[in-house]
């Protein structure tokens, strides 16, 4: 087990090298010129060349890449071309925001999805299941920016229970931090929860038809215990798989919701950097995102081994 984990962690290194290399050269192909943003409209060619020389963009791409890579291995990810802020600082500020929203959204999706999925599976085909499945379809169809708008309007503007915008770091108080991330987490978690509910329902229905479930009932195990102990664990593999996809989606896909709540998270940093072509920031974002995804994948594989003994030995 330990060897599997170590091997997987070591595999992260070459993967990140490949990802960052590809990303760097793809970025170099981008038609967006950072000089346009710096100089404003209609610059002369001399001005553009001067900016390029100043930013080091006049050198061959490979030279630029090795300069960046040389810094990256020592932990220096470069700086933004525009704010001159070190990329590591930029990411260190954005990452807690996105991680909070991702975890919050994940928690909401599980709190919503698991009970509803279990409820539906236990009443498969009956009225309760149909109502729940209908509701799930509805949630899944709700766009998160629209839900975010409604949440802001109702809970922040009308009731004033939560702040409408802004992120409070956890270091400035757990209560304020929680209040700040509640609404965006809800906006993100509801449709993700619908996916979890669907997957839980179908996986659990399949497991409940297995003979070992019937046997356990015949042995006198209560329904609650049969579901909790036998069925859920066996139904878990497809559920954790979609949860892992949800995490990836929440991590990268919360840009719209971040914007709506004026939170400068990872997605916002990424989109700004791409649109202005801020190469070091783009690289930093990609490396960190790749690392996060690889960690999620590792956790997913470990959970497979935990839920399914067949995986453990092979």
């Amino acid at each position, binding site marked *: 087990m330990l060897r599997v984990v170590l091997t997987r962690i070591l595999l992260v290194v070459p993967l990140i090298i490949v990802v960052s290399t590809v990303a760097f050269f793809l970025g170099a192909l981008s038609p967006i010129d950072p000089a346009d943003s710096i100089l404003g409209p209609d610059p002369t060619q001399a001005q553009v060349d001067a900016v390029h020389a100043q930013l080091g963009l006049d050198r061959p791409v490979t030279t630029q890449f090795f300069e960046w890579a040389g810094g990256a291995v020592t932990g220096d990810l470069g700086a933004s071309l525009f704010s001159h802020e070190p990329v590591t600082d930029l990411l260190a500020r954005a990452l807690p925001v996105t991680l909070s929203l991702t975890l919050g959204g994940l928690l909401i999706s599980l709190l919503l999805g698991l009970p509803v999925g279990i409820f539906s599976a236990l009443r498969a085909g009956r009225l309760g299941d149909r109502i729940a499945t209908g509701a799930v379809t509805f949630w899944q169809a709700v766009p998160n920016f629209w839900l975010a708008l409604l949440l802001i309007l109702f809970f922040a503007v009308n009731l004033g229970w939560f702040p409408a915008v802004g992120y409070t770091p956890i270091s400035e108080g757990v209560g304020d931090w929680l209040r700040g991330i509640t609404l965006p987490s809800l906006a993100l978690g509801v449709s993700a929860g619908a996916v979890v509910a669907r997957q839980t329902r179908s996986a659990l229905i399949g497991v409940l038809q*297995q*003979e*070992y479930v*019937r*046997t*356990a*009932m*015949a*042995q*006198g*195990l209560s329904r609650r215990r049969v579901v909790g102990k*036998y069925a859920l*664990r*066996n139904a878990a593999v497809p559920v954790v798989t979609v949860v892992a996809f949800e995490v990836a989606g929440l991590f990268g896909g919360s840009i719209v919701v971040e914007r709506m709540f004026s939170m400068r998270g990872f997605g916002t940093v990424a989109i700004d950097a791409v649109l202005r072509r801020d190469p070091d920031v783009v690289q930093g974002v990609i490396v960190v995102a790749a690392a996060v995804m690889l960690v999620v994948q590792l956790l997913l594989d470990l959970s497979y081994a935990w*839920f*399914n*003994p*067949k995986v453990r030995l092979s």
Partner: protein
Amino acid sequence: MNPPVDPLLSVEDVHVRFARRRRGFWRPRTWHTALSEVSLTIGAGQTVGLVGESGSGKSTLARVVLGLQPRDQGQVRLRGEEVDLTRPDTTRAFRRAVQAVFQDPYGSLNPTMTVATILDEPMRIAGELSTRDRQDRVRELAELVGLTADQLDRYPYQFSGGQRQRIAIARALAPAPDLVVLDEPVSALDVSIQSQVIDLLERIQATTGVSYLFIAHDLAVVRHISHRIAVMYRGRIVEEGKADQVCDEPSHPYTRLLLASALDADPTTSARRRERRRGLARAFADEFGAHT
């Protein structure tokens, strides 16, 4: 023949019906009768074979006996006392006394548990033995069904179908039950493995005095193991009696048809039997309507 035995479990006048899927919201619900006027008695230490074609209600009856299937009418008695599954104390005793082995040796064992945990589970639920006693019993059971001690820490997927079925049998025997319901326990196994499992079941009965309700569609196997045989057709028990009597002098046309359906290795016998079977099927169809 067999000495008279005390009734261990009896099913009395049981009716079960299932709602069919409605064809439209406004259409009235229609019902499918799965069991109708079914009565059956299983004596202590006895094996009752239950035969019948697919859909005849064998497995529904098994579920009724196991207390997994709500009844529309009728009773189940264990040692003369009515089984009331709304009372926790009688439920616990009943769940311990009646165990089950199902057909599919791949689906009947929880894939996330080791064999030792699987065998321990029913005893833990019954809650009568200490942890140490249960561990001893697990080893004892493993030995009984021919598993080695080091196999106890393995998972079900690491065993063959026959081994899995023996694990399922060991699990059923774990809480020292009075009756084991065997719902087609050998149908999914190779013929050579089938006889091993049947021998094992007979040996266990000889030493422990457990009763079996043995469900199968292969009459030869049922005849071999059963003291009495009940024949089911379309939700009813159409014939019940001593095993040899039912097989040698069947009184109901369906039983005759079922007996005639058994295959034979010799082509000439087979051809003769085919002729006989066709005659019986015609006679049966005249009496009971279409039969396929």
